[in-house]
């Protein structure tokens, strides 16, 4: 059984809350998930490297340090709920 407090901690680390019902649902769903995790344990992965991407041939490179794709300050702030004098506005951090 996965502890309620642990579930809440995982959620808080990702900066959101869960309702009590959601915590209970996760506990229940975790029972199935933990059985699925057991299926993983059956597979021998000794000396197998993790695969982070489908292809390992390089498609990226360091580009020249030239300015491209510039957006205006107005555009950058367009979707912010609060902005002022060219800045995103948040609550005072240092009080």
């Amino acid at each position, binding site marked *: 059984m996965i502890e309620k407090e642990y579930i809440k901690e*995982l959620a808080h680390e*990702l900066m959101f809350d869960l309702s009590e019902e959601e915590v209970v649902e996760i506990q229940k769903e975790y029972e199935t998930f933990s059985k699925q995790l057991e299926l993983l*344990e059956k597979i021998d992965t000794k000396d197998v490297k993790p695969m982070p*991407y489908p292809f390992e041939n390089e498609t990226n490179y360091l580009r020249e340090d030239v300015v491209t794709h510039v957006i205006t300050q107005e555009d950058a702030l367009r979707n912010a709920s609060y902005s002022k004098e060219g800045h995103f506005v948040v609550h005072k951090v240092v009080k």
Partner: protein
Amino acid sequence: MEKIYKAFEKAKNDKCNAIVTLVEPKENLNKGKLSGEPIILKDNISTKGIRTTASSKILDNYYPIFDATVVEKIKAEGGVIIGKASMDELAMGGTNLAAYTGPVLNPWDYKRMSGGSSGGSAAAVASGIVSFAIGSDTGDSVRKPASFCGIVGVKPTYGRISRYGVVAYASSLDHVGYFTRNVKDASLMLEVLAGRDDKDMTSSFKEVKEYSKLLNSDVKGKKIAVFKNVIDSLDNENTLNLFNDLLNKLKEKGAIIEEVSFDNDLMRTLFPVYFIIANCEATSNHSNLDGLRFGVSEDGDDTREVVINSRTKGFGSLIRKRFVIGSFGLHEENQEKVFKKAQRIRRLIVEEVKKCLEEYDCLIAPASNDIAPLLEGNKIDELSDKYLIAENHMVIGNFTGYPSMTVPMGFEKGCPIGVNITCKAFDEENMFNIGLAIEESTGLKDLVAKVD
């Protein structure tokens, strides 16, 4: 423009809850492969000045300041965007029941789901609003709804289509995909969308072929591997009969059909490996949704509280629950036995499939056990082979990055079901050819659901 206005009118009268934003058509003077074609985009594709929500409440007020590369490419070839389509919130889901605008209904039967996560795009094509719609595919999010909606769904090779401007879900699995009503259109659409884009550093430099001109349904001597683990996990006789009929027809056309079995213990990990990798990557990709720089901002006494409230209210329950799984898998004490373990098994699966496709031209299996489930469907046992293998085998296309497509295979209770093929990396030419042979065998093309 007549065709476009007609499509726009149909989109306005959409009965499947598929369209979330209508886009007033603007004449496009560019002449090209999509001249005069109305196009619908999944709502995770950025459109300059047009609301893009990814069907999440947190993005309800988001207006991108740039077009995704696929949007630029569609416009350059004469296509006209007429709407944005519903999806599972942030593309996380396979039902399209998890959009904050409500479920998308299946155009063949309104009591059934469209499938997801690109369900709105699929329903828009199947109900005859447009002939082309863009989706995205991280697990089977184009290929599964294509099966449930009786249309063609394509997920090309990883890196074949630029993902610049697509709201990211799980970057190592995300692909742009699309829907059409026949294989010829599918081959044409890839010509439009594919190609290197320096704004997506994972996009490939490989040449883009003129797939539609190379189309050829001759499968004589082609070696087709029947995905035996999937067949053994299916229990719907109608699906098996349709599949066997199709195999017989392909045999008559000269294809060599052989059964291939992978280690079943390895195949049982398909779903959990996908679920872990996708959710872990998603937690990191979606950390930018904080309600501060863009998106819906909720009140709070300090910045931390604003972010927590915005994310709590902005994300649906399913998304937050999945994020918890992602957070769990990445937590220091679990990372090795959950996330890294999944990544290691991914490599083993990919190696097995690669070996198989070195010998065969494609891997084939029904896309699903059944037609689209009812909206209030029975819950399937998530530890059964039917769920772990038969309902989730198409994640192989995302693990490997190999091209994969679903084509209609037949009907049950008046609703369609598709067949899926997966080919070698960048072998889309061959995939379309086999797809065309399937289409000719079944005679199922240009299907439109009779919407009343």
